[in-house]
């Protein structure tokens, strides 16, 4: 239980650090900041919720909680590295004008957000493997067409 509480404190403090850095990097009301908050930082909130449940669980079933204590950081590690890669490249795409973000990603449903993330990740991967600029443009225009179809 104590261990879970410490983990929770660490996650909350780290969440604050991430928000502060996002504020320095992106202007507070920019689209990138919005995307950051609604796509990337979401995982922290899930982890925080998971740790709160674990602390209660650890009181009654310490062995089960111990196994979950291993699973959560590994899941978080895999999930975050994927999300972070997507965010970095998406931000660059937005800055270069290749990606047009809707007025507010707040309006997207969780399913739409999930689909957008998956499509964005596969597009970025394909774009990295492109032989030249024209192929890259073609890949991004396909992404734009897909996004337009989703409306």
């Amino acid at each position: 239980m104590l261990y879970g509480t410490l983990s929770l404190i660490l996650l909350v403090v780290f969440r604050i650090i991430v928000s502060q850095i996002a504020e320095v990097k992106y202007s507070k009301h920019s689209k990138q900041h919005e995307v950051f908050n609604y796509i990337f930082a979401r995982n922290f909130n899930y982890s925080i919720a998971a740790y709160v449940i674990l602390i209660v669980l650890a009181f009654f079933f310490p062995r089960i909680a111990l196994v979950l204590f291993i699973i959560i950081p590994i899941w978080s590690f895999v999930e975050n590295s994927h999300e972070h890669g997507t965010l970095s490249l998406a931000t660059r795409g937005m800055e270069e004008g290749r990606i047009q973000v809707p007025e507010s990603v707040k309006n997207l449903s969780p399913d739409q957000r999930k689909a957008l993330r998956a499509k964005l990740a596969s597009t970025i991967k394909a774009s990295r493997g492109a032989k030249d600029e024209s192929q890259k443009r073609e890949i991004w225009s396909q992404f734009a067409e897909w996004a337009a179809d989703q409306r």
Partner: protein
Amino acid sequence: MGEIKKRMKDRLDAFSDAIIAIIITVMVLELPIEKIGGSVDYLVLFRAIGIYAVSFCFVGNLWYQHAQVFNDTERVANKTVVMDLIFLFFMSLVPTFTKLMTDDTSKLR
């Protein structure tokens, strides 16, 4: 001013990496090697290694996220420096809490 903040960020990166490396080293050094009748008590040792693995994953994951976030920025605000020090303070308690958890589970037979 920007240059100072950039240098501060570099120093903070190095300081955080050093602290995290020390935390993991301390956790390994605290693994209990108890001997019963001249031979190592493997049950206690493997349980402790299991708990060390939990802490290692947790600290490793936080280091990775910390590195990713700090790699993305060239300078940090003073309030971030303070928050990072608070973060490192709580993180440096991980070995103590890991030892507590190891001692507790060693009692379970």
